[in-house]
């Protein structure tokens, strides 16, 4: 399974449709004022995002806070309804289906195969339920198991994520952050899904626990043939776990490529700046560093043209007026930049 996922290449993508394909996804949050809740504007949290996730791979989604990565993750499961766009999911039973159009029964059915784990291991577990109730909730609510069978499946699930089945009658307060994240993982995996949206699953954890959870995610992926969309802001973690990475900036996708390609030969100036900013546990002095000036654009009032142009060192006139397209400049490498072809940007290794 691992071998197979690693050899996914651009040519195979055409042959085998991706497990998830997101097209022109938008999520605008209205800004309301006054008594009549008049809409005075929109926060364009996700503003036309295209990407795909292949079966069995881990797709990293990175970007700075407020760039819309979490919203994107939640839209995919229709946890929040997208404003527009298509979310094509290859459901094992229903076939290729646009999640954004689904309602009720079908949505519940699709959510059996698409699950989510949350960032905050404290807020995401109902403190008033035992592990049996928490992990069993999707099985019960989706009518997948009940009674003794449900208990057995919960026990099995707990064992898989490295918790003892005897803990079943305990409440979340008995567990540490790392253990709670395992519980969240057990709940997500209980209905045996294909696809998992991991929303910053390790960023609230201590370094040593973070490694345990990352390893667990990799083990489970191999055992159960899972596909991950791994949303995070920590680039080292994303690089470690993902086959491919997509970079977001102010609600838009700016670059998408395989991890190696993206980190070694970034094509978007924002990606380059991100690479350069990663603090690395290596005391060798780095001589070159790209420091961004200014602030992240306001998603309620984004700049004209390319959203990144006010901070970009390679800015040209066209960047200020025209929004670049998200083009595939080499197989599987997508960039949203007018100057992607001509620029020779530095990757992580060159910077070191």
């Amino acid at each position, binding site marked *: 399974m691992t071998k197979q996922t690693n050899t996914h290449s651009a040519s195979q993508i055409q042959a085998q449709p991706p497990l998830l394909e997101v097209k022109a996804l938008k999520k605008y949050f209205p800004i309301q004022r006054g008594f009549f809740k008049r809409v005075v504007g929109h926060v364009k949290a996700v503003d036309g995002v295209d990407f795909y996730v292949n079966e069995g791979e881990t797709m990293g989604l990175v970007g700075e806070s407020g760039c819309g990565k979490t919203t994107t993750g939640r839209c995919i499961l229709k946890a929040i309804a997208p404003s527009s766009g298509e979310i094509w999911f290859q459901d094992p039973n229903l076939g290729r289906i646009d999640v954004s159009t689904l309602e009720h029964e079908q949505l519940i059915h699709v959510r059996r195969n698409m699950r989510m784990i949350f960032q*905050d291991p404290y807020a995401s577990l109902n403190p008033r339920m035992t592990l049996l109730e928490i992990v069993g909730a999707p099985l019960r609510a989706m009518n997948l198991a009940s009674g003794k069978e449900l208990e057995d499946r919960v026990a099995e699930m707990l064992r898989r994520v490295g918790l003892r089945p005897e803990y079943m009658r305990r409440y979340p307060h008995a567990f540490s952050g790392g253990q709670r994240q395992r519980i969240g993982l057990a709940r997500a995996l209980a209905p045996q899904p294909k696809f998992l949206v991991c929303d910053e699953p390790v960023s609230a954890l201590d370094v040593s626990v973070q490694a345990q959870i990352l390893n667990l995610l990799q083990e489970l992926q191999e055992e159960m043939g899972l596909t991950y969309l791994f949303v995070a802001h920590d680039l080292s973690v994303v690089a470690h776990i993902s086959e491919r990475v997509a970079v977001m900036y102010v609600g838009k996708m700016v670059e998408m490529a395989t991890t190696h390609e993206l980190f070694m030969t970034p094509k978007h100036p924002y990606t380059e700046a991100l690479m350069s900013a990663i603090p690395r546990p290596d005391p060798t002095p780095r001589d070159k560093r790209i420091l961004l000036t200014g602030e992240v654009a306001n998603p309620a009032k984004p700049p004209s043209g390319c959203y990144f142009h006010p901070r970009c060192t390679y800015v040209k006139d066209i960047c200020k007026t025209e929004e670049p397209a998200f083009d595939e400049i080499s197989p599987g490498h997508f960039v949203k930049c007018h100057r992607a072809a001509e620029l020779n940007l530095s990757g992580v290794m060159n910077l070191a």
Partner: protein
Amino acid sequence: MSKKTLQKKQLGRKTRRQIPEGQEEEFYRAGQWQLVWWKFRRHKLAQMAMVVLGILYFIAIFAEFASPHDPLRRYKQYLSFPPTAIHIRDAQGRFHTPFIYGMKMGRDPVTFRPTYEENTSIIYPIGLFVRGDPYKLWGLIPSDIHLFGVGGGDEVMPLFLMGTDTIGRDVLSRIFYGARISLSVGLIGIAISFVLGLLLGGISGFFGGVVDEIIQRVIEVITTLPTIPLFMALAAALPREWPQLRIYFATTLILSILGWTGLARTVRGRLLSMREEDFVLAAKLDGESEAAIIARYMIPGFLSYIIVSLTGSLPGMILGETSLSFLGIGLNPPTISWGVMLQDAQDIMNVAHYPWILWPVPVVVLAVLMFNFLGDGLRDAADPYVS
């Protein structure tokens, strides 16, 4: 964000430390209410308050049995009689079980008010389960056994531990009977407020939009209305020919109509904040229906808050009854309540001469204080998952 998590983490550990050694598994398996109870148990003052309130409610329920006299019986020869002193040592220095002396009555030559003096030659021992005024417990079970008193017939000196009022009724017995009304006005009022607050707050928080807007404005209007004039008008609207019991229920109803707004706001606030919780979103993704999310995830989450807010508003209800009845716009004689009893104290001269008619005040203070302590203890214990 991570600092917050850190704090939460430490709190989690802190809670864990509360477990007695060797009972860890029991602690880990403890649900919300078990944890609340453990946390509450650490509150000594609140526990004491619970015991005191238990006694008060016991007295209220068994008022007929607990009080030494019939609260309506007038002892014409003992008008405004001061509290009887209890002795355990007689004039000769001998010890007895607690007893009281007989009384010699005189008259002040200047003011013509009666004076009382102990007649140390007659001793009436105080006994338990003595026979006295006949009564029917809850209007059903006839008996004449009282928890304590001096017993005997009319010729003995009656026991007036808190004295008598201006027309010779035993203050203590009246306080005991009054507890029945004064302590239950709160409970019934709260029960109605609870239903109203939960319902309207729930609707407001759950449906949002226009309904929410309307309910919020109505709450604002109600809180704007000055309570006492409003109450006076409403109370004046009650037909005079109504029996006391119905008046009493109407009074509690009015109190609760004015009292639900706070609770409704609490419920709405909790509901709104809870809808944003990650675990509620997780439940939605688990395929739980809206009804299940409300019943299994949200209601247990704020039930403890509701209980706390209820205990918090009970003292207000008790104080409300007392104040309104004192002003003469709540309950009126012959109903016995603490507020009604205090109507006598409206005349400051009465208070100056017979200060014992103020006994209902310390009792009200005690009851309210105990409810406040209990409420405080519950508030600290209410959400065992945060500090």
